Structures are given as C-alpha cells and as structure tokens.
C-alpha cells in the first residue's frame, strides 16, 4: 500500500480533511502522515517536517504528497531535495486538497498503485464539475464506453443491496478487487443509465450513483473477464462486507 503525506498551512485543516477522508475507509488504512502548521500552532509549512513525514510513511509502493497552496507546494518540492539517498519514490500531486485527499485515501486503501492513486486524486474534482455542468477543457477525459476487443465480452447485472448504495467504501473495495485482475471491466448504472466507467476507478464508480435496489451492469473483456464478473457478482451479493449477519436477506 502506498503512503500519503498531507501538507497544509494549518494543522486543523489537515486533521479535518484527513478525518473526512478516513470516514470512507473501514478496513486497513494507508500510512498517512501530516506535515501541517508551525510547531507553535501557527499557520505555515516546514520542508524539513515534510521530508520527515515522507520517510515515516515510505514503503516499497511509494508516497503521494498532497498540498494546499503556496508555500506548501514549495516546501514539498524542497523536501524532495532534502531526502537522503536512496530516496523513496515520491510524487507531488496537483490534486485539489480535500477532494484529492479523499480520493487518494480511498484508492490507496483499496490497494491502488502510486500512479493509480495519483490519477484518482487529480481527477477528483471531475464529479464536482460534472454536477455543476462546468465542462472546462481541463475536465477529466470521459471514460471510454467500449470495452476492449481482445477476447469474449462477458456481461452480467446485479442489484446492489447496500443500504446507502455504492458509496466510497464499497467502491474502493470493488476497484481494488478489479485492479488485481487481468481484465478490462466497465461498470454502468443500468437503472439510471449512468456510465460506463472503468471498474478500477473508485471515483468513476462513485459517480455512477448506484443506490440500494438499483442495478449495476458489468461488462468485461480480457483473460480474466469471467473471473472479474464473478468476483463483482459475489462481492455485490455479499454487500461488499457492509451487511451484518441479519441483513443479508434484506436486499
């Protein structure tokens, strides 16, 4: 699992943003370190502290650094220069601070690679833009609708039983599951017509807005297409681990 460093001028802001992001994670959390505010409780950033935080959370999978504005960005860049060799792999993300942190934490908890987590974080404002009808040129590219053509197409549909639908936590579990299989999986909300989106994209899945009782359509190609569809069906019927023992018949 990758590590995440949160750089902010404000310790309170960093803690609150992290708290919001961790609401979405119920299993194993990524290693996360905060480098925020000055030691005396004021506003500011400290490149030496950022470098320490990177080392604290670094593992074999690399570290993603999220920043708020101004000196947070410069301190993060300087921190990378201050790291002792051999330095861990570090990526500084241009993602929006709050949305990016939520996406990063959820995607990392789902087992996403550093590149995948960074991409999710940096595309994290797409949902807000879409909601507001603000389709700027810099909007995230729409996921391609057509599945790959290498091999047979496997499709299936399943009714989502989770009480609050396919929200962030089950979306993270689903994306993590599909990310580990050799298959190109597209998911769509058959009830509302939303999608399709790539199955490995947490934010894509969340953007489908699948509510309890709505139908998720799965389309898969590739070597493990059948396994992927079976895995989605099985996980969906089990409520992505969110249902208590007494609830499994409720959907």
């Amino acid at each position, binding site marked *: 699992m990758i590590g995440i460093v949160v750089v902010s001028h404000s310790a309170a802001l960093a803690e609150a943003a992290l708290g919001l992001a961790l609401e979405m994670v119920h299993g194993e959390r990524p290693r996360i370190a905060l480098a925020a505010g*000055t030691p005396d409780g004021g506003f*500011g*950033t400290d*490149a*030496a502290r950022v470098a320490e935080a990177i080392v604290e959370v670094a593992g074999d999978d690399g570290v993603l650094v999220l920043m708020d504005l*101004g000196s947070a960005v*410069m301190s993060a*860049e*300087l921190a990378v220069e201050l790291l002792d060799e051999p330095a861990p792999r570090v990526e500084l993300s241009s993602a929006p601070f709050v949305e990016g942190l939520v996406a990063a934490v959820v995607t990392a908890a789902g087992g996403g690679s550093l590149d995948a987590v960074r991409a999710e974080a940096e595309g994290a404002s797409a949902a807000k833009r879409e909601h507001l009808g603000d389709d700027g040129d810099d909007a995230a590219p729409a996921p391609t609708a057509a599945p790959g053509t290498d091999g047979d197409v496997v499709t299936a549909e399943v009714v989502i039983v989770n009480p609050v639908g396919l929200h962030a936590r089950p979306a993270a579990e689903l994306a993590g599951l599909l990310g580990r299989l050799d298959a190109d999986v597209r998911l769509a909300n058959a009830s509302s017509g939303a999608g399709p989106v790539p199955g490995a994209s947490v934010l894509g899945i969340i953007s489908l807005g699948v509510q309890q009782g709505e139908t998720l359509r799965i389309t898969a190609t590739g070597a493990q297409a059948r396994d992927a569809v079976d895995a989605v069906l099985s996980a969906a019927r089990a409520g992505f681990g969110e249902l208590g023992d007494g609830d499994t018949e409720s959907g």
Partner: protein
Amino acid sequence: MARTSLTVADLVAWTQRFRDLMVEHRAALTELDSAIGDADHGSNMARGMQSAVEKLEQTAPETVGAWGKSVGMTLVSSVGGASGPLYGTFFLRFGASGGDATELDAAALGAALRAGLEGVLARGKAEPGDKTMIDALGPALDAFDAAVDQGLEAAIAAARDAAAAGRDATEPLQARKGRASYLGERSIGHVDPGATSTAYLFDALATATGSAA
C-alpha cells in the same frame, strides 16, 4: 586597505546583521505584508533569522557550506510562510556553491549569490516583474557582477543600491505570484514585502563587511 575576501566569520556577521534588521523592521514588514499578503512576513523573518543566529552560536560553522546549510535549514523549519522555502533555498544553494571553502573572494561570492538566486527562481517559479523578492535579488546580482572588477566592497555596495532600487520599483507592479496575486490590481501601489526584506539582506551584507561606501 579594502578587503578582498569574506571569511566564514564575515558570513556569520552578515547573518547577525540581517537578523538585527529583520527584528528592527519587523512591524514595518508586516505592515507591508498586511496590504497585499497575510501580514506575517516581518514576524516570520524575524523569528526565522533569530533561530538561524542562535543555531550559529550553538555550532559555529567552519566552512561556507556548513554556514549556508545551517542558516538555510533553520529558516526552512522556523519561518512558516513562503519565505521559508525561498530564503532557505537561497542559503542552501549559496552554501553548496561555497562548499568546503573558508573564504570567498569577489568572484566566488558572486558565484554563490548567483547559485542562491537560481535556487529561488527554481523554487518560486517567479520571473522579474512578478512583484517578488526576485525583483530585488536579480538587479542586485547584475549590479554586483558589473562592479566586480572594482573590488569586493564596491561590488557589494553596488548590489545593495540595486536591491534597494529594485525594491522601490515593485511599487507600481501587479503581483502575479503567491497570495498577493489573488488581489489583482489591488496589489498595485504597495512595495513588495519580499523585495523589501531582500533589500535588507544586501544592506546587511554591506554594513557587516564594511562596504558601506
């Protein structure tokens, strides 16, 4: 007789003099920053330079590199605002340029200052005219280089004068970097606090080295 080189002790004296100026002008710098920034430049720089001087008093550096690293890392950790990574990078790169040297002649001082400027440019991505410390630092180094043939003290004095002129020239500019850039045209008419502290940096260099002419 005019001096021809700076020792590490001179660099420490420069640091102390800059600290004195930051403490003395703390309120005025913060006042400038309150017009176009977050009103903390004076207090941040005074605190950072006080920490830097205390660090030098605890562990006396023996080389230019050790001095630059000590001052730079202390600023990085104790300033808080954007001046931390910017001035921190300036002193770190200055020190790296000097390396194991224990004295800097005029050419070596020019090279070290230039390395510091390039570090600030790389870190802040600001260009001349963006209403930042670069608008004092850049002209100071150009003036230093132009006067370097006249000797160390003349070059430092020329750099000090150019830094002050560069500071004054930021008043009519519109900020394009940092939080001041959010103010747009409202940033016009105020001298930039970062350019002001940089002018003091060269003022301190001139007085600490007796190059006040």
